[in-house]
C-alpha cells in the first residue's frame, strides 16, 4: 500500500476512535510524522476527494475515502493474521507495520485464501490492541 493509503487508514482509525473528525496532530502521531507532513498529505487527499479538512475541527474522510480506508485496513488485517497464524510471528503487529507498505492489496487477497478471516473484517479491528479482536493470539501486548 502506498503512503496515501497509510494516511487513509490512520485517519479512519482516529476518526472511528474519536467518533468525529480526526485532529491533524493525532494523525501525525499515529504515523510518526511531523504535523507539516501530515498537513501536506491531507491536502493531497482533499484534492482527490478522499477527505475534507475543516480548520480547527479536523479531517473527515469522504464516502470514497472511507471505502478505500476500509480496504486498506482489511489488507492490514490480512497481513497481521497471516503473520500471526501462518508464520507464527510473535511480534506480528510490529512486523505488519513494517511490511504493509510493500504488500499490495492483490497480494494480500492471495494470502487471504489460506487464513480464517471473519466476514465482518475490518469492523473487528481493535485500534487499542492494534489487531483483530477475533485473532486467536495474546492481546495483552499491543505494539507501542
Amino acid at each position: 500500500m502506498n503512503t496515501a493509503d497509510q494516511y487513509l487508514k490512520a485517519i479512519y482509525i482516529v476518526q472511528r476512535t474519536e467518533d468525529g473528525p480526526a485532529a491533524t496532530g493525532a494523525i501525525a502521531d499515529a504515523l510518526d510524522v511531523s504535523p507539516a507532513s501530515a498537513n501536506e498529505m491531507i491536502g493531497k487527499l482533499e484534492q482527490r476527494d478522499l477527505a475534507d479538512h475543516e480548520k480547527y475541527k479536523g479531517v473527515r474522510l469522504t464516502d470514497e475515502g472511507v471505502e478505500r480506508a476500509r480496504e486498506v485496513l482489511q489488507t492490514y488485517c490480512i497481513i497481521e493474521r497471516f503473520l500471526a497464524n501462518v508464520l507464527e510471528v510473535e511480534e506480528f503487529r510490529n512486523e505488519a507495520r513494517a511490511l504493509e507498505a510493500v504488500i499490495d492489496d492483490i497480494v494480500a487477497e492471495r494470502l487471504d485464501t489460506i487464513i480464517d478471516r471473519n466476514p465482518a473484517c475490518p469492523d473487528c479491528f481493535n485500534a487499542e490492541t492494534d489487531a483483530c479482536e477475533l485473532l486467536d493470539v495474546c492481546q495483552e501486548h499491543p505494539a507501542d
Partner: protein
Amino acid sequence: MSLGSTVTSDHQLARLLQIGAVLEEVVEARAHRHYRSLDVGDQNPEVAALLEESAIESAAHRERLETLMDDLDAEPIGYEEIARLVEEHYGRTRPDDFDGVLYDQLCNEETAYKFYDDLIDAIEATDARFAVDRDHLLSVLRTIREEEAAGVEDVTQLMEFR
C-alpha cells in the same frame, strides 16, 4: 509505522522472501488441487499442461527464494503446511469450471508479478546493506519477475484461444 515502501533490514527482507515462498507454495498447491478436482488431465490437455508447468515453475521459484533465505539465516516455510492450509480453505475459493481455473491461474501469476515488482522497487529504493549480495538478490528477483510476466502472457493466450 513505516511510511513509504523500502526494505531496511535483513529481518524485513527475509520475511518478505518468506511471504514470496508462501505465495509460490499456494500457487503450487492450488494447481495440484485444481488438477484433481476437475479431472483436468482427461478433459482438457491444454489446461492440464498449464497447471503442471505452473506447479513446476513455482517449486523452482520457491527453491531460489529459499537459497536467498538461507543466506539470511531465515527458516523456510514447509510446503506440506501450506498445502494443508490450501486444502482446508479450498472449498471457499475453488473455481467451478475450466474458465475459473484459468482465471485463478491468471490471478496467481499477476499477484506474483506484482509482489516481485514491489519488492524489487523497495530494495532499489534503499541503500541498506544486506547479508546477501545485493546484485545477486536483485538479479534473482528480476528473473523470477520476468518468468511471472511470461506466465501472465501464457494464461492470457490460452484464455483468448478458448
